[in-house]
């Protein structure tokens, strides 16, 4: 019952985040929304596992957390250098 209420709140937050990702003027707004959206997806996965008494989804959640952070950094690196294979450079 309370788990369902928490799940509904996270789902409503997801809808608002999708709206920001669709509207957001700069690419960084979209990226912030996408990062938070990934985290909300992990939380939905975790709560759904407890709702259905099968918390094995948490393994998928762990993998998805790592992919989420790597994806964010990959997009940021691509925006900065224009290529993912760039070795980077020292900060001035």
């Amino acid at each position, binding site marked *: 019952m309370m788990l369902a209420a928490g799940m509904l709140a996270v789902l409503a937050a997801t809808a608002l985040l999708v709206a920001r990702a669709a509207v957001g003027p700069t690419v960084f707004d979209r990226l912030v929304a996408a990062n938070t959206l990934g985290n909300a997806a992990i*939380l939905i996965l975790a709560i759904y596992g407890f709702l259905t008494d099968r918390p094995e989804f*948490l393994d998928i959640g762990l993998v998805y*957390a790592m992919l989420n952070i790597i994806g964010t950094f990959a997009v940021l690196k691509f925006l900065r250098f224009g290529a993912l294979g760039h070795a980077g450079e020292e900060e001035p």
Partner: protein
Amino acid sequence: MTVEMIRQWLGGGLVVVGGGFMLIGAIGLLRMPDVFTRLHAASVADTLGAGSILVGLMLIAGPTLVAVKLIFLALFFGLMSPVATHALARAALHAGVKPQLAEDGAIAAATAEEARPSTR
């Protein structure tokens, strides 16, 4: 009222509170005026909302392997979400997005958008 019942109620309450924080963060992300204030709102959802939901689920799970997985997930959130926020803010600053200041009013956001049309 056994310990088991108290644990279940406390866990459910923490999950609801965490959901509320996620909602607050999402509303902030939708309504804040520029990238940096939106990052501030997003970090509320990432740390407080996620942390509170995961601690609530830990209480419901009890001392099992599932709780260990939840602890790993909470640790990962607590370490990586500030790092992601920092990287996003620095990348936005490098790309020339100007923070909106009180003196400039609403004009700053418009000019920052004009200066970098390619980042749309």
